[in-house]
């Protein structure tokens, strides 16, 4: 009998730990799949019963509604698909600009709160307490109302600089009139960036080898300005501008930044920056003071201490929570609906309303925001890996 119990060949398969683990997983997966199938078929049956239209056919249909601002050509004659694309681009616009600005502002404020200057550090603390503790929706309403209540109507436009007009319809400013030269200048700018990157690589290598420093900042600035400037002169230096002019009700020509976009951007940036400031402060404080003292003792200036010693280490603490704040900014941008900025949620909402296809519309919203969030996470994870301390 004793020998039988230790005989592995005779054990039943459900007594085998490995097999059991696989069975559990198959059962769980099947169960989840069943629930998913059940939910979907239930929704379909119910919608058929109520004769609610379903499917994504509406994307091809004419949208027949206007959108206030758009990065691509759009008119009411275009399809729902294009309208939704306009919405996606508008969300991307406000999110990307917002992420960059809020990271910069948040870092500055965070460093401010740690300043040894009483005024600056108190300002930083006050900023954080103020903006962190007011609901972001209220802030949006506030900034939006500020725009249309304070600024004058187009006919009494404020005109701080020639060609720039500030009204309750937004800021109108001149842009260079279309000219092939501007395309080349754009290319020159990109080329300049590549050249700077290459020079920088060379400079770093040289410094590592010989210890000689290279005035990278000034050279870089020179290339960044010089190369496009040279292209501009070579192309006959076009100076024609597309200046906004008051025609009828509004300014025509030039570019316009709408109050809705501005209010949303300002609201989101100021709000999110207060959280980022806290994260930056925590990150810097997490580095032991001995590091600073050690860096000082080898003769580094305070700015260099921050840049070369503190920040590289603090970033490891800062980046993960920073990612979630940037994701928050993207998701909060859907509050745009409240102040009339035509972001993706607003366009999708209108689409749902016109077509009655809420399930499809909400599914699309989820997919779009999920994609945005995953892409942001992917980028930040890549960055996080890059700044990891190299184990030697």
């Amino acid at each position, binding site marked *: 009998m004793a020998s039988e119990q230790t005989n592995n060949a005779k054990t039943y398969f459900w007594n085998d730990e490995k097999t059991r683990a696989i069975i559990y997983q198959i059962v769980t997966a099947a169960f989840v799949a069943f629930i998913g199938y*059940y939910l979907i078929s239930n929704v379909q*049956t119910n*919608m058929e019963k109520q*004769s609610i239209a379903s499917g994504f056919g509406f994307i091809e249909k004419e949208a027949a509604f*206007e959108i*206030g601002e758009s990065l691509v050509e759009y008119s009411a004659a275009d399809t729902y698909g294009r309208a939704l694309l306009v919405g996606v681009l508008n969300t991307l616009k406000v999110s990307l600009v917002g992420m960059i600005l809020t990271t910069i502002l948040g870092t500055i404020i965070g460093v401010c709160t740690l300043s040894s200057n009483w005024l600056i550090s108190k300002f930083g603390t006050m900023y954080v307490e103020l903006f962190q503790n007011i609901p972001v929706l209220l802030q949006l309403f506030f900034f939006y109302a500020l725009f249309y209540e304070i600024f004058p109507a187009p006919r009494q436009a404020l005109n701080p600089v020639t060609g720039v007009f500030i009204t*309750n319809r937004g800021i109108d400013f001149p842009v260079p009139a279309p000219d092939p030269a501007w395309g080349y200048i754009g290319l020159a700018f990109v080329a300049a960036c590549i050249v700077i990157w290459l020079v920088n690589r060379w400079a770093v290598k040289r410094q590592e080898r010989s210890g000689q420093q290279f005035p990278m900042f000034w050279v870089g600035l020179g290339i960044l300005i010089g190369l496009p400037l040279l292209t501009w002169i070579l192309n006959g230096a076009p100076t024609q501008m597309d200046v906004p002019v008051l025609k009828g009700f509004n300014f025509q020509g030039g570019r316009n930044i709408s109050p809705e976009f501005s209010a949303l951007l300002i609201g989101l940036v100021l709000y999110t920056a207060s959280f980022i400031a806290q994260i930056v402060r925590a990150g810097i404080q997490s580095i032991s003071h001995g590091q600073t003292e050690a860096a000082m003792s080898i003769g580094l200036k305070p700015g260099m201490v921050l840049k070369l010693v503190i920040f590289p280490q603090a970033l490891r603490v800062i980046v993960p929570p920073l990612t979630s704040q940037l994701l928050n900014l993207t998701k909060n941008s859907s509050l745009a609906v*409240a102040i009339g900025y035509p972001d993706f949620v607003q366009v999708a*909402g209108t689409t749902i309303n016109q077509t009655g296809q809420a399930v499809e519309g909400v599914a699309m919203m989820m997919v779009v925001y999920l994609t945005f969030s995953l892409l942001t996470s992917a980028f930040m994870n890549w960055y996080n890996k890059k700044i990891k301390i190299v184990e030697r």
Partner: protein
Amino acid sequence: MKLWKSLFIGCSLVAMSAGLAFADNGDTLKDVQAKGYIQVGVNGDLFGFGKADQKGVWKGLDVDTARAVAVAVFGDYKDRLRYTPLTAKTRFTALQSKEIDVLTRNCTQTLGRDTSLGLDFVQVNYYDGQGFMVPKALGVESAKELGGATVCVLPGTTTEQNAADFFRSNNMEWKTVTIENTAELSQAFWAGRCDVLTSDASQLAGLRASAPKPEDYMILPDIISKEPLAPAVRHGDNQWKDIVNYSVLAMINAEEMGITSANVDEMLKSTDPKIQRFLGVSPGNGAALGLDEKFAYNIIKQVGNYGEVFERNVGVNTPLGIERGLNALWTDGGLMYSPPFK
């Protein structure tokens, strides 16, 4: 074996809820009778149609329409109505998902909505048309002069599409500002964010009445669309649809017959067989709808006929000051017409 047990319980729970989830649309009357009140979707921000006053009492043409339905079902409307304020974007979903039993929220009946949204419209309770409101200071006389204007409009409405059609067919440039909430939208308009506010003419009158300085604004004479505003119910519940439909029609029919809330008791003694049938003195109509025989009498007694409801909420003696126009009885050159109650 604990896992198998919990799996089994989980599966049977799902199977049970499947039975519940497939409940169909055909029993709204039973539902509301069981719970003792009607959940009604209203505007919430629209003076004259659906808005609560300072004391929290709901008032408006759409609110009175909902009251008529409540009276028809319960015999009175006090504590029989619960209001859900809905935006233009949320209204149809609320009805589809059974959050509300009936939608009386100035909704335009269109073929598209009737067929693809899983709802049915009943008798129109207000014939409207889309107009434009502008500040007088703008010096505009006609909608055709609005090229290049910035226009405030509610998103997800027929007016949004009508305006797009209008500017497109007249080859005029325009810009939209779309804010979901009526109060926020009109606030932006009063502050001058847009040159024009477009909506149904009745809504414009209501909004103008609530402006900081109503006399500074004018409604342009152009009407660019047909907007038959009608209550809506879920598709597929024919009895409930009949009840809502004939509650509205009862108010119109009463006006045709000259019955008002003041004289309805006298009218009970009328020898006219048509009036006797209408007020339930000779039975039949109520049973046909599954309601009390006195449902029409109760509606007229407690809510009033259509003319009274109109004058009380939006008529010339209210801040809105709207003429009957299309909403007069057919006998007076309007469109309000009721089929016979027999």
